[in-house]
């Protein structure tokens, strides 16, 4: 039972991070390699708002969520907007540069000491009994529930709302969508905002569970194989890919060797690229050679 809970928590982490990769790629065909840094920025955002609104944890959380969304929109408005019409490679390189810039800026702004936003919020990370013998942390349980809510919300948003349908249209055929009056910049900015929001929320919850370390950015990279395994243009694929990678990782830690946990996501990814390069749920013709 404990193994199942461990898999669920790790899969939730990967799924919440990887849906950001998918949202941006699906809408604009850009692979954001600054997603780990944006996730970490979300965590630092919570630490900042928690100390700014000391004694008002809900206000602090709401402010950090709004901030994460606005950061994503700002990244598009300030940088990615200028990449419109450029090659995919140029846009990917721009995200790499953005990541390096953000990493340096975060050290300057927040220092390099471990920060504990949960403590600043005045909450504790309680251990909750689950079933007979399993336990999960409050932050871990929140991760699972939030991931489920985010994916349900995104599925509903993309299928049932006007902006969601516009996002799908822009992703399928941007030229036709623009000719039909859809403002592509608005759609892309929304995708960046939502992707940074979900990644930021993952960063916030990891920070609540374990604090903010400089290594947090690497965790963003570890979720990347989950997105690719599922199929980079499929939200359902990101969910399944996360579950596959997390299961492989947790089971290998428990039954084989913990050291394999670092390489197994990339091993699963290589296996998938060899057999089905477009991923479990990806679209075959959407593959680009970068």
């Amino acid at each position, binding site marked *: 039972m404990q193994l199942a809970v461990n898999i669920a928590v790790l899969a939730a982490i990967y799924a919440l991070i990887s849906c950001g990769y998918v949202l941006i790629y699906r809408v604009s065909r850009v692979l954001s390699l600054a997603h780990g840094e944006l996730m970490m920025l979300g965590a630092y955002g919570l630490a900042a708002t928690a100390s700014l609104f000391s004694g008002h944890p809900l206000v602090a959380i709401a402010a950090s969520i709004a901030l994460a969304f606005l950061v994503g929109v700002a990244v598009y408005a300030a940088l990615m907007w200028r990449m419109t019409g450029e090659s995919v490679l140029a846009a990917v390189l721009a995200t790499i540069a953005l990541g390096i810039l953000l990493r340096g800026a975060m050290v300057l702004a927040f220092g*390099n000491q471990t920060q504990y936003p949960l403590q600043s919020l005045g909450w504790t990370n309680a251990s909750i009994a689950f079933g007979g013998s399993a336990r999960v942390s409050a932050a871990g349980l929140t991760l699972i529930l939030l991931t489920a809510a985010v994916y349900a919300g995104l599925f509903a948003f993309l299928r049932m709302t006007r902006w969601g349908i516009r996002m799908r249209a822009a992703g399928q055929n941007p030229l036709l969508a623009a000719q039909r009056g859809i403002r592509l910049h608005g759609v892309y900015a929304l995708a960046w905002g939502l992707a940074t929001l979900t990644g930021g929320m993952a960063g916030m919850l990891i920070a609540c569970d374990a604090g903010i370390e400089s290594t947090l950015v690497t965790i963003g990279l570890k979720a990347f194989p989950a997105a690719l395994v599922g199929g980079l243009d499929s939200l359902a694929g990101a969910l399944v890919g996360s579950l596959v990678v997390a299961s492989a990782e947790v089971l290998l830690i428990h039954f084989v060797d913990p050291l394999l946990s670092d390489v197994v996501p990339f091993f699963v990814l290589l296996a998938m690229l060899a057999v089905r390069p477009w991923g479990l749920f990806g679209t075959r013709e959407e593959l680009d050679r970068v």
Partner: protein
Amino acid sequence: MKKTVLGIVLAAALPAAAQDAYVVGVSAAMTGPGAGIYAPVVDAMKAYLDHVNARGGVNGKQVRLIVQDDGAEPSRAAANAKRLLAQDKVVLLINTSLSSTYAPMVAEARRAEVPLYFGGSVCPKDTYPPADPLQFCSSAFGANLDSQGALAFVKAQAKEPVRIGFAAMAIPIARAEIDYAEGLSKTMGMTPVAKQISPPPAPDYTPFATKLKDANPNWVFSWSPWVSQVRTFEALRRLGWSGRYLTWAHLNAEDELARIRDGEFYVIGTNALFQDDLPVHAEIRAVTHRANLKYPVTYLTEGFIAGLVIESALKATPWPPTPKKVLAAMNNLKVDLKGLRGGPLEWTRENHFRIRQHYRVWRWDPAKNAIVRVQDWQAIEVKR
């Protein structure tokens, strides 16, 4: 022609002659992975030497500390060492960075025959007796000795047979130490039941802790970077494990004991904590305040010790300083650490680590709502 030759000779002689100060060069991980551990050491070292300069310097001369950031990258450390040796003509080279930066800096120091001092970075085995002629170290960590001190504490505390688990980060130095501790535990009559090695960036430590908990240890010993030590412990507690956990006291141990507030979470270390409230702690506070350092004062003991060591080594170096004179001074050095450790730091020609390593152990006492000392200084002789 004569004037030109004279000009070249003067220009070549100028950097050395113009240096009216002891010039010391540092290559440190001020950014990048591990900066949280190394940057406070360098800042405290610099603050202490600024304080020494404000009091008139060493032997009436100022100490000039040149700090270069290597971002924990070997190539940048090598470039820093080259620049510090060739351009700045430092008489002492200092490393405060990851172990991966050691080899290139050792190579440069050997080429220039300048002593290399590890202040705040893990002491390489080359500083243990019989020591490499050029390498010195004052850092708190002591490979193998730390495990000896830790397991001796466990044995002294345990009233029941010890079933011990081990946890470490997947980096060479931590794995080697935990392997040593595992072997040592068997010779001390303990039963090692599990050993968990986790990768450096793990999003969730629960899967690692689950396996450790399933082995049902009553003690766990961890020797790694703090993040790995404490995340494993917190995951174990959330899984309902109620045993005792002993781990290494890094710079942030004092603040972390107060954050975690667990009566069975022990830290073992060689530097006194601020709760020991020594007169030297007031001095560290004053220096920190004057330098306006951004770190909590509890993080700065290691850097202050490095500052004391540099001051003592330079005090024993007659003016004008040369690397050879500094080396001679360091080969016969005794530094009064004012109670920050269990005894003075002593270096000899054979031993560039220390003659004795002293350990104290602390924990959080929930009844007193404070950090308490569980074991006072216990000395281990550092032998060949």
